[in-house]
């Protein structure tokens, strides 16, 4: 049974067209939720960590929020350089075992 589900699988946006990505999770004892960005041919790059429901974090055009069941990554007025696959991961246990979602591939066109 999937513990981390991301939607949509793919998202095509016009430059400046804001949107949100969803990450829903079913782990019982969430210790942390992580957002990563992955460019083609590269490793995932850390964006945010969220620890408890209600928490929000921002970085440039990205804003991550967390509830008890899901997290959203909001992309405000995206630019073509925001094109990437965005991965969500949850940590449940004490050591750093992350369960990743399948990712959302975002393409931003000029």
């Amino acid at each position, binding site marked *: 049974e999937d513990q981390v589900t991301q939607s949509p699988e793919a998202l095509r946006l016009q430059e400046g067209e804001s949107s949100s990505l969803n990450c829903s999770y079913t782990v019982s004892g969430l210790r*942390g939720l992580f957002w990563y960005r992955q460019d083609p041919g590269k*490793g995932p790059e850390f964006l945010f*960590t969220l620890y408890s429901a209600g928490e929000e974090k921002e970085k440039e055009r990205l804003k991550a929020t967390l509830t008890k069941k899901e997290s959203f990554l909001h992309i405000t007025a995206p630019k073509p350089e925001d094109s990437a696959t965005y991965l969500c991961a949850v940590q449940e246990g004490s050591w*750093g075992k*992350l369960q*990743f979602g399948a990712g959302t591939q975002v393409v931003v066109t000029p």
Partner: protein
Amino acid sequence: DTAVSQTPKYLVTQMGNDKSIKCEQNLGHDTMYWYKQDSKKFLKIMFSYNNKELIINETVPNRFSPKSPDKAHLNLHINSLELGDSAVYFCASSQDHPLAVAKNIQYFGAGTRLSVL
């Protein structure tokens, strides 16, 4: 300086061969990981070492054997390669502590694309 470096970047080999992938981190982290990313882009953890001790060992065929000579290095040896082993393998590291999620930010290498023919 590359924080987490993997070699080689590409690996093409025949079924049945044995191959190794090397990983080194210069971040001073205590914990290192191996992940497998399949064709559907799903990242799955395989192993994790903390200070040279194995702490996570997922359900992985025993043809895969990790080795950590010191806390800055974690290598992955694969015996008798199969077609299904074709994937991108990522190494990662973190300054992990079981009670501090904040230190579990994992930094990834660029990946090794393994193709088994």
